[in-house]
């Protein structure tokens, strides 16, 4: 593994100043998105629980869309490209072949985000302007499939962003090809291996959403086509919609495998196991998306059952990771004098915010694994599918395992990227623990609320329902949700403040050890075929064809490529011809978006 030849004084910013700049810009974009997304998050928590309402309920969907898109697209993926730029450059020890390509993908991603953000934020205007012949709006949530329709600019922004990520992957592959020709016969350094395998998974999976947008949703939004086949576009969305979860998660895995063992005072337990895990994600992450559609009509139960089986296989890389990462931490603890079956846990560096943040993130991830199994099971999924349980799950996994790891990783990386000492190390420790406490409150409320049938994606969860609750009360759940959301928001503000102050803390020497020790069991212990990426791509494609050819053919044969008829979408209700009840008014007030979102 690379890095061993550098001493602590050889900071990344000193070795690769231009690359450090790229990473800093990508991280800046990520953290701006994090700040806005977190603000929208706390507004939702307070609105849903009726503690503080500063917008009207229909505007809640603008906030909900912004929260989703800014956090799970902008924050996570900008952080990913920054981290991966660091990982490739550091582990190969070389700059990109052509920096113009690097600036191009960073520019495309930034412009794409800006365009999509304008379309989303226009939802706050009382009278949004007409652009390209239609009103600027994008209240379509992160799950932006039909029948919800956004302004074309929203989709254009997303396309530019995704094309930017594709180009970034090409940039990293190019660096690797150049390195390979200089180092024939060498094993791919583990961080670069992780980057390349993640990008292969991303290429295979993001083609689904690209097809959905470019072939169907964008032409429909522009008025070029009159209709589309909603089941087809939903299926194409979820073809991407589950693997994208691993696109968020794998940078966190990279930090757990590469940095966490070092922070623990030890070495990665097994380099070959880490490679196997990333290959398993290439193979298994894509043929599972239909498990998000267990409740969708138009897809046979048989296909759903096959996908459930595929999904359960995905537990394997997660469990392998749990073993390898914890074993690496234990190695560090025992090297630091830890003893006993559990006593070694006390020898870990719990005062280090980077370590503690990542360790707590891993702990939350382990718990989220259980709720993920519930989501993946066809029968139990029916109980929780449209309930608050599901946001509970995503907040333990992406909202903590990923987000908290990214924050903790930033505390380790930032001094190396800026040459500045981290400001407020004890505040940073408080910040990661505060996040952990906040997520416990919030997700406890969400999981329990979900089990008693509280819906997700609505501003008015209590409207016209009485929930039968076994323990506690709905008020207690609301208070927990609002408290958790507020703590998470405060934690985000602390994180952003520490990052900002560190950026300007340029009259200090950083205290950071950037060296990555080699694995206990190194790449020489793994079969060479693990590095033959063509083999894994070929197998992955075969699995994708097996999983998707029949369901897609089935959907198209029944609904047509462009749908039998778009008339149900958007739903139009003629108020004048119906007796107006309070229920009807409220449903309409929240718009068609609410009603349709609730059935997704």
């Amino acid at each position, binding site marked *: 593994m690379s890095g061993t030849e550098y001493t602590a004084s050889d900071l990344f910013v000193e070795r690769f100043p231009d690359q450090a700049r790229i990473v800093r810009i990508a991280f800046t974009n990520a953290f701006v998105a994090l700040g806005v997304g977190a603000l929208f998050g706390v507004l939702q928590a307070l609105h849903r629980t009726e503690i503080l309402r500063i917008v009207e309920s229909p505007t809640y969907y603008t906030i909900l869309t912004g929260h989703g898109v800014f956090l799970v697209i902008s924050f996570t993926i900008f952080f990913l490209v920054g981290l991966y730029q660091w990982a490739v450059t550091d582990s190969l020890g070389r700059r990109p072949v052509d920096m113009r390509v690097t600036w191009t993908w960073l520019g495309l991603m930034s412009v794409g985000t800006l365009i999509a953000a304008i379309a989303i934020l226009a939802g706050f205007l009382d009278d949004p302007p007409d652009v390209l012949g239609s009103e600027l709006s994008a209240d379509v949530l992160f799950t932006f499939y039909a029948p919800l329709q956004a302004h074309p600019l929203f989709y254009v922004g997303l396309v530019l962003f995704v094309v930017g990520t594709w180009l970034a992957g090409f940039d990293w592959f190019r660096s690797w090809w150049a390195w390979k020709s200089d180092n024939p016969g060498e094993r791919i350094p583990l961080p670069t291996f992780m980057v390349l395998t993640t990008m292969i998974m991303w290429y295979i999976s993001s083609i689904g959403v690209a097809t959905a947008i470019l072939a169907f949703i964008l032409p429909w939004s522009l008025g070029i086509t009159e209709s589309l086949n909603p089941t087809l576009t939903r299926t194409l969305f979820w073809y991407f919609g589950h693997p994208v979860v691993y696109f968020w998660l794998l940078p966190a895995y990279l930090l757990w495998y590469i940095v966490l063992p070092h922070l623990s005072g030890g070495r990665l*337990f097994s380099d070959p196991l880490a490679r196997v895990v990333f290959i398993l994600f290439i193979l298994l992450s894509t043929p599972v998306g239909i498990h998000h559609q267990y409740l969708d009509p138009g897809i046979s139960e048989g296909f759903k059952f096959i996908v459930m089986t595929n999904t359960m296989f995905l537990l394997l890389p997660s469990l392998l990771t749990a073993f390898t990462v*914890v074993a690496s931490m*234990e190695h560090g*603890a*025992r090297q630091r004098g830890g003893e006993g079956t559990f006593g070694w846990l006390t020898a870990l560096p719990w005062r280090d915010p980077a370590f503690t943040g990542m360790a707590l993130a891993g702990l939350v991830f*382990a718990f989220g694994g*259980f709720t993920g199994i519930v989501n993946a099971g066809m029968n139990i999924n029916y109980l929780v599918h449209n309930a608050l349980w599901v946001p509970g799950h995503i907040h333990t996994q992406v909202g903590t395992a990923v987000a908290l790891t990214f924050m903790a990783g930033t505390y380790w990386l930032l001094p190396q990227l800026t040459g500045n000492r981290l400001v407020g190390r004890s505040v940073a420790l408080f910040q990661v623990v505060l996040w952990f406490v906040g997520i416990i409150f919030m997700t406890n409320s969400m999981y329990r609320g979900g089990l008693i049938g509280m819906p997700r994606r609505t501003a008015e969860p209590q409207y016209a329902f009485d929930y039968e609750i076994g323990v506690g009360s709905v008020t207690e759940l609301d208070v927990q949700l609002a408290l958790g959301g507020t703590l998470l928001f405060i934690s985000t503000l602390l994180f952003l403040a520490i990052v900002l102050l560190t950026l300007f803390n340029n009259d200090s020497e950083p205290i950071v050890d950037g060296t990555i020790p080699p694995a*206990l069991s190194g790449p020489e212990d793994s079969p060479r075929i693990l590095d033959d990426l063509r083999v894994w791509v070929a197998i992955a494609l075969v699995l994708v064809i097996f999983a998707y050819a029949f369901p897609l053919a089935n959907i198209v044969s029944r609904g047509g490529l462009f749908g039998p008829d778009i008339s149900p979408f958007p739903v139009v209700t003629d108020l004048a011809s119906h007796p107006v009840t309070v229920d009807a008014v409220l449903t309409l007030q929240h718009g068609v978006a609410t009603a349709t979102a609730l059935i997704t």
Partner: protein
Amino acid sequence: MTDGNVTREIDHDEYDPVGTLALIVLYFVILLLMWGFTYFIEFLGNDPTPMLLA
């Protein structure tokens, strides 16, 4: 950030991750208990699905 504080080097052959094994066993026990809890709440605690919805 971390000071390392390594007091003894442990190489591959002398390292036996028994603590990891203990934690994983503990995790699986928790999973089993949660499955049991889910079964109790969702199946034993509820009546069969009604044949007719009024």
